[in-house]
């Protein structure tokens, strides 16, 4: 179980893995995530499930190399097994036939966005998707997103692909052009913060999928706590998606930096070992 059956590099930093786990493949819904561990010394960390094939019994994970744990995961090859994998965790995305849905994905956030875009499209909505990244190399899953969207806008910070600009520019163009009934944003926390501020201006109900630090992922420890509407919620059991306009993104960004020194040190030691 948990054997890697496919591995594909989208760029030198972003990798797609297809992993054997028939039970999670069957029980998972869009929006769910898993917690994994690589090696007996590994830490537990979350990844949103980017896709699943219940017939084949596999799930798809997309990981961006950031520090030690993501590097260890990406160092695995086809045929290797992930030491521990548990799921599906979190509340699934609430999908309904609401009209026009604006989906916005930043960087590797496009991977978990894909099954949600597919679900909204299958539910009968018009789906307009904006995918954005710093540069061309970091744009992923464009073809798959196009398959399930009525329209796709690609934005890059440096203009190396698609249009130059931030994701919010693409989003605002659509919002000003037509009525949007619901918005879903997934990406780096700072991207979600500004996307949310934008849609708040226009009163568009928006869901954001938060990427808080987690340890157990099952509601046990509170490491992933965020303030939503003035109340403390746990990203792993109350989320990972929340009403973006209620999320205290500044506090979330602060909490994401809680282990910066430890992360830096660990990455240094790990690179020296290689």
């Amino acid at each position: 179980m948990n054997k890697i059956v496919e591995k594909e590099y989208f760029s030198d930093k972003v990798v797609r893995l297809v992993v054997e786990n028939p039970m999670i493949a069957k029980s998972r819904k869009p929006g769910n995530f898993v917690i994994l561990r690589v090696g007996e010394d590994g830490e537990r960390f979350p990844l949103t499930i980017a896709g699943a094939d219940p017939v084949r019994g596999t799930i798809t994970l997309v990981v961006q190399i950031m520090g030690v744990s993501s590097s260890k995961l990406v160092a695995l090859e086809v045929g290797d097994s992930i030491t521990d994998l548990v799921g599906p965790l979190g509340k699934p995305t609430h999908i309904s036939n609401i009209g026009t849905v604006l989906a916005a994905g930043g960087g590797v956030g496009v991977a978990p966005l894909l099954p949600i875009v597919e679900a909204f499209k299958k539910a009968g909505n018009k789906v307009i998707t904006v995918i954005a990244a710093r540069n061309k190399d970091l744009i992923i899953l464009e073809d798959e997103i196009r398959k399930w969207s009525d329209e796709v806008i690609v934005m890059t910070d440096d203009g190396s692909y698609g249009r130059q600009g931030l994701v919010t520019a693409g989003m605002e163009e659509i919002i000003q052009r037509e009525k949007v009934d619901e918005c879903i944003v997934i990406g780096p926390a700072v991207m979600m913060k500004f996307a949310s501020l934008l849609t708040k201006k226009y009163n568009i109900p928006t869901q954001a999928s938060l990427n808080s630090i987690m340890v157990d992922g099952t509601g046990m420890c509170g490491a992933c706590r965020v303030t939503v509407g003035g109340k403390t919620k746990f990203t792993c059991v109350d989320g990972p998606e929340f009403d973006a306009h209620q999320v205290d993104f500044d506090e979330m960004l602060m909490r994401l930096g809680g282990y910066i020194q430890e992360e830096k040190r660990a990455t240094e030691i790990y690179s020296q070992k290689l």
Partner: protein
Amino acid sequence: MRSKTKNKDRMLIDRVKMPELAAVIRVKHQDREVNMGLELAQAQAEATRCMDCSNPTCIEGCPVSINIPKFIKYIEKGDILMAASTLKETNALPAVCGRVCPLEKQCESRCFYVDKLNKPSVAIGHLERFAADFERNSGASNIADTASPNGIKVATVGSGPAALSFAGDMVKYGYDVTVFEALHEIGGVLKYGIPEFRLPNSVVDFELENLRKMGVKFETNYIVGRTSSFDDLREEGYKGFFIASGAGLPRFMEIPGENFNGILSSNEYLTRVNLMGAATDEKDTPVLRGKNVAVIGGGNTAMDSVRTALRLGAQRAIIVYRRSEAEMPARVEEVKHAKEEGVEFMTLCNPLEYFADAKGRVSGMRLNRMGLGEPDASGRRRPMPIEGSEFELDVDLVVVAVGVSPNPLVPSCLPDLKVTKWGTIIVDEDKMQSSISEMFAGGDIVRGGATVILAMGDGRRAAENMHHYLQNKSIN
């Protein structure tokens, strides 16, 4: 054995002193046990104190009714392996209980010496640990007898003390038992909650191996209700479920600043250190360290947290507790060990607010002093803030250990399961049966945060009653 020594001679022996690792040494090590264990001669001398009362009130004080005089007399006789067997008749995890039971409230409080002679009790806990450790170290394989397999499948949700004790009994009755655990390690609070310096994980693993040898099956990384549903398991043939998913939901005080970095629940802090080994460099999981650490709370979890902080390099490790020391629920031995190690006790103090530096890392807190008023619902005197008593304390790490609530995962998957407003599962107190007839429950998911031994008692009761329920069902 009674005639071997006269009772009046037995009473002359002083209660044994458990050898303890010196405080200055032990604060440098997360993984060195404080209590080092008795030698054989010490154990036998202590066992001689026990007068094998014709009406042993000590047994009444034990939540799993261990035959205490019986195992103690085996120790006196020198037959330690038989003492261990006696323990195993009623207690699946004697090496655990001998270390973590609040004996001063249970068996030892009912000892004849305490009841009638106003002298220190027989050191029942130390003797229990001695017998269990002796058996483990002897290499003697002492697997209890099991009835012949009846082919009926039962499952536990969770792998903590309630589930393990249930599994041990059910496998003896002949059932096909699978323990399902959400985490990647078995043992629940025994592994993630109780530190190495109180309960080494190797001791827990030894007990788990015994259960495996008896035929209990374990599945990790498996969340019943999510990874697969209860209906899926029913389709696979499971006829009975014991829900023992614990009270692993942290409680916070909801005061300003509580979400600053460096403020952790005790669950998070202890899980990082005990389960994930964060104190050692070989393990990837980090833990935040502080020089001035405040732990809010007065129970065993607070003691575990504050003593862990010391071992992780704190210069000041402070317990902040809103009531007085007399009201602290922690084991007397833990408070004693904490004081020896240099933990400061700020009792009758309550946190009001936390402050942080520019990066959002906690840097201080504001507290006020409390007085004790009339008793509240728990029977303990109610703490009341003293006007104008506010003061500030520099802290760079805070652990919130003010209690835990039942984990909501399983109840959320079973809408028909009756739960209280606090999320605990409602059961018939004698049978441990829930509102869904093939589901029994026990441990903290029923009691809220309680003790290992009470969870084990629940597991035993649930096993006995589920056994009757399933036998009756198969007849009808």
